[in-house]
Structure formats: C-alpha cells, structure tokens
C-alpha cells in the first residue's frame, strides 16, 4: 500500500520514529490524563497506519479524498458529495529542508513544511489526495499553491479579505458555488439538498462535540491539559468524522464529570494561560509543551486549530440548496482569520475568550514571517491590556534552537502574573 502511494519509505520511517518518541515524552508522561484520551493515543499510533488504510480503501471503492490546509475549505460540500476531507501535514521541521531546496527560506514554517512533505513524498495523506484545496489567505500560500499545482492537482478558492462589504459577500457566495461545482465534477455526484442538509448536520455535530470539550476547560482546576486538548483539535482534521464526534462526546462527558468532582490536571494556584494566534498543525506541540512543562495550564486556543474551527455552526436558513449555500457563507465568513481587514471581530473575540476562560495572561503565537498575525498582535495586545490581561508575543518556527529562550520568556511571564 505504501509504495503504491508513492511514499518515500526510508524518510517516512525516520519521521515516524521521531514522532513516536516525541509523543511518548510529551503526552504519555502527563499525570492524571482523562481516560478517554486513550482513543486519541490510538489514533496517533495509527496516524500513518489504519487511518491512511481507511482512506485508501475508500478510494478503491471509487470515493474521492480532498486535502485542505485551511478552515475556509467548506467541508460540508465535500461530505455532501460523498467525498472525504483531510487536513494535510504541515507542522513538522522534518520536511522543511526538502522545501528550502526549492522555495525561499523566508516563508512561514507551515508553508515550507507542507510543501516539503509533498516534494519529499513523506505525507501519506498528501499522497492519498485526489485534489488539494488551497485558498488565498496569505501571499506565501498563494504563490506556493502555484508551484504545488505543478506536482499535484490543486484548486484555489478566492477568499475575500473584507467581511463588511456587499462585494465581499457576493464573492463568498460565488466561490462557494464554484467549489460545489468543482467537487461535483471531481466526484461525479450532484450535491442534492438532502445530502447537503445531512452533511451540515454531520459537521455541526462534530463542531458541537469539540465545543463541549472546550467549554469544560473553563473550569478551575482545568480538567484536561492544553496539550491533550490541542491534540484533539489536531486530530479532528483527519479522523473519520462520525467516529471522532462520538469519541469526543465521550471525552466531553468525562471532562464534565471531572469538573463536578473538582478533578483537574493543574494546580489551581498556577496562572491560567490562553493561547492565541497562528495555528499549530500536527505535530507542532512546541509552545504548549514549553508552557505546560512548567506546570502552567493552557486553557484555550484562539486559533484555527482551536476555537476558530468549532465556535460557529451552520445555522439553518431554508431547505433549498441555494439557501444552504447562503447559510454556509454566513458561517464561513464569521471565522476571524488575520487575513481580513479590518478585523475587529477577532480582537473582540480574543478579549471575550480571555474573560470566559478566566485567563490570567495570553501567549500570542506568531509563526515566523506571518505578517498578518504578527501585525495584528499590536491591536490584540492593546485590547487585552485595556482589560488588564497581559500578553506575551512569541515569534518562532518549528526548530528547537530557541526553546530555552522561549522557556525563559514564558517563565518570566508567569512570574510577572504571579509574583513570588
């Protein structure tokens, strides 16, 4: 199966070896983990095993697999056409040298990582895709999609960069329709209203389950570590939707039970930190592991791999396909990516979340060379400061060379929040 996918097996083994060790050190060593995390341990142990096999089998049965990098790819349309969507690999330092041999170094690590996974042939999900969906959320991605299109079928959605104009709204709707047509052409299935309604329900249920896990983290002591919660979010991008929803609801049940019993994973006298900013694609666990390594819990992620994915549901707007497409636009246009201007909604959301999750401070993550999130940190920091919530901005990539400096900064930040 593996060589059929065109995977570079030798390199892939190196990746899996490193991944397994990091997972053991960071996740399995945690104390008092929720029992239901066993499922996610299993998914990780089979990250490049059973799940890939499931996708390959679906493809053998004539179904299509769509890869995506961004929350703006409307997965409801993919599932309505009986196809499967997977988030693609882009969180590892491992694949960056393969990318830098071809594209500039001065790019965000996420872009370099995913491009490296494709040119190096080391991501089985990438290798399983019939189509990759890109989007125009940043200049780096846009230009790299052009290069990616030379080696694998790539479709780029145009995402407007304003939310407050009728032109932007019209573009959203037109893009939604064009994407639908593209998926219909690829799968040979026409998206009917019944299937679309069911797909909307399916994905709403998934988002609701994730929201329950997140809600449980508002409690003190927090019932689940930030690392584990981040992992659940990361896995949501490639696991089977129905199975994931079921298991995540079970995890939420356990967390709610823990909250009733006051059973937490971090001492209640430690400051609570909220994470905000650029996404952490699997296996990027860098900042969470640094923060929680000092016993300080991360209680929420205002991020694409985090709240931006599950907060908004698609609200029913009528039963015709057209009205459902409108409802999809309503939902997708609410995601506050820093690519929008102005983007006051995001700033309000960060402040609101910090309050709801009782965060003592916010750690703001900028992936190196991500100008949108980096510049927007100015406004976010200002708004948080006005509410008495300090913010620490960390500008970093996937390498380990600055881990000690970051550790010192985060530690100094927690000392500032809780003077001895």
């Amino acid at each position, binding site marked *: 199966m593996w060589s059929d996918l065109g995977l570079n097996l030798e390199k892939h083994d190196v990746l899996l070896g490193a991944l397994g060790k990091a997972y053991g050190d960071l996740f399995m060593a945690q104390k008092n983990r929720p029992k239901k995390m066993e499922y996610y341990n299993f998914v990780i142990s089979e990250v490049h095993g059973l799940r890939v096999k499931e996708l390959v089998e679906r493809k053998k049965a004539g179904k299509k697999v769509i890869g995506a990098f961004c929350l703006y790819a409307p997965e409801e349309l993919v599932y309505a056409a009986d196809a499967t969507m997977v988030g693609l690999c882009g969180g590892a330092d491992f694949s960056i040298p393969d990318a830098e041999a071809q594209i500039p170094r001065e790019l965000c690590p996420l872009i370099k990582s995913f491009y490296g996974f494709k040119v190096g042939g080391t991501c089985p999900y990438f290798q399983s895709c019939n189509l990759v969906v890109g989007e125009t959320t940043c200049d780096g991605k846009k230009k790299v999609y052009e290069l990616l299109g030379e080696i694998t079928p790539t479709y780029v959605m145009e995402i407007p960069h304003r939310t407050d104009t009728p032109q932007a709204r019209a573009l959203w709707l037109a893009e939604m329709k064009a994407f639908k047509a593209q998926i219909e052409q690829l799968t040979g299935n026409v998206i009917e209203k019944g299937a679309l309604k069911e797909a909307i329900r399916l994905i709403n249920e998934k988002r609701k389950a994730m929201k329950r896990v997140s809600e449980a983290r508002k409690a003190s002591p927090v019932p689940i570590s930030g690392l584990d919660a981040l992992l659940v979010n990361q896995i949501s991008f490639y696991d089977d939707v129905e199975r994931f929803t079921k298991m995540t609801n079970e995890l939420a049940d356990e967390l709610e039970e823990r909250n009733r019993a006051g059973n937490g994973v971090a001492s209640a006298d430690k400051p609570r930190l909220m994470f905000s900013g650029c996404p952490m694609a699997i296996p990027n666990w860098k900042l969470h592991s640094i923060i929680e390594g000092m016993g300080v819990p991360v209680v929420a992620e205002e991020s694409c791999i985090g709240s931006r994915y599950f907060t908004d549901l698609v609200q029913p707007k009528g039963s015709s396909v057209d009205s459902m497409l409108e409802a999809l636009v309503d939902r997708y246009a609410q995601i506050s990516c820093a690519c929008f201007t102005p983007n006051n909604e995001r700033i309000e959301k960060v402040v609101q979340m910090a309050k709801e999750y009782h965060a003592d401070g916010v750690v703001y993550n900028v992936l190196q060379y991500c100008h949108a999130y980096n510049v927007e940190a100015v406004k976010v920091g200002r708004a948080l400061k006005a509410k008495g919530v*300090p913010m620490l901005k960390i*500008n970093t990539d996937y390498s380990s*060379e*600055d881990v*000690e*400096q970051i550790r*010192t*900064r985060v*530690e*100094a930040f927690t*000392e*500032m929040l809780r*003077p*001895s």
Partner: protein
Amino acid sequence: MVRLVGVDIGAVATKVALVTDGTLTASHILPTGVDGNAAARRALRKLLETNSLTASDIAYTVSTGYGRRTYSRANRTVTEITAHGEGARRFCAEARTIIDIGGQDSKAISLSEDGGVLNFIMNDRCAAGTGRFLEVMSRALRVRVSGMGEIALQSQQPARISSTCTVFSESEVISLLTNGRDKRDIAAGLCESIAKRVSTLAKSVGVREKVVFSGGVAKNVGMVAALEKELKVKLLVPPEPQIIGAVGAAFIAGRLLGAEPKSTILGTVGEVPVRASPPDCFVRGASEPTIGRTF
C-alpha cells in the same frame, strides 16, 4: 545573621552575591565556561572562603540566568527578568526601566512603582546587540574588549556599521580596517549600532525614567554614551553592573525564605525595605564601593 545568596549563571559569566541582613556584603564574578553548575559552585566556594563562611551559613539560595536550572544547590530558581527587576530597584527605588545587555542576550524591563515587572522584551535568537557581538568585534579590531569603550569615546566621526548581524558586521569591520578607517571610529560605530538595536527593543516596552543600565556591557563607557544619545535619557549605571541579577536573586531568596515553613529554615528574615535612593542613584565612574552598601 541571615545570609542569602543569589547566583546568576549567564552564558558568559557567572555571578554570585551575598546579602547579609539586607546588606550586600560580597560578590564574585568568574567565566561560566562549559559547565554552569561547576562555575556556580566555584564562585560560591570563593565567596565563602574570602568571607570565612561555610555552606551551612547560607539560609537560602536562589539561582537565575540562562543556566539557573543547572545549579544543583539552589533552593529555588527565578528568571533573569524577575531577578533584574528586583536587583535594579534595590539599587534605585525610582527605577522604572532596566536595560540589561549580557553576554548572550539583551533585554528591557518595565517596572511598576512597587517594583513589579509590568512588561519585558528580550532579543530574538541571534547575538546582535549583545556582549558576544562586542567580543567578536574587539577581536576583529584587535583591541581588548574592556578598552573598546574608551577608544570609542575618542572618535570624532563614528563609522556607519550598517549590519546588525554579528557575522556580517565582522566582515564589515574588517573591510573598514582594510580601507584604513580609524579603529576609534569603528569602535564608536559598533557602539552606535548596538545602541540602535537595543533602544528599539527598549522603546517597545516604553522607556520611563529612571533608566538603569546593567549587565557586563554597561561597563563599556562608549556603549553608555551611545545608548544615552539614542534614547535621549540619562542612564544610571550601578557601580558593578554585572551583579544586578545575582543581587536581585539574593533578595528574592529573602522573600522566599520568609514564606517557607519555619521547620525547614535556618533563620528568618522579614521583608527587606527598599530605601528611597538619593536623587542621583549612582553616578558613573563614582568611587562609591558596591560591597558594604546597605539597602
């Protein structure tokens, strides 16, 4: 008598300070080398020997700095940010901003009126704007790093060093030398280049007076002048600017000791008051001794 020790294990130098009943009574500085724990132990042994003390005379030890976790004898560790905040305000109660340039990092810290850390920023990754940068440049210039500040002050027309990358700046210095540029102008240009970089850092946390300049690089008079010019404020340089972190750690040790359960402590110490300092906390070049200073 309650004796407290602060150990600051930096990337280049290890500093220890002994505070006895609220008075700084001794300090010692030596190179860190490759083993921070060994350097800290050597420095402490030296400190104890010269003061006819033994390890059991020390009530509490706090370590700080890059190598803080390597020191096996510390009761607690604290980051260099918190330690410098505490240390600077012990020297100058009116300190609101600290600029510290050490061997491998530079940082700016903003303090509240009660001495708490309000905000801080550290340099990212590279050695630009640190002591290491000056060390590399002094080798290229073939002058001693300790004498670089003096010759920089003699320059009438500082050279423009356009790059802040250590490696590129070194090539720039070499080509300036090849072109016959005076060493004094190059030294002054280097100080200006660091001052520009560090003042950008400091401005991002907000520069409020009084401003304390600490760390090994604060011993460089050329750097002090360049930074004052760039920031347009007067800098207060402690008599021994390198030990601020260690002094701060020793005072934090006092606070932590006060908070420990009585059964585990060797003595007690209350909150050591911060005395209001004279209007001019410390004057550069003044002959006031550090040791024996009462806080």
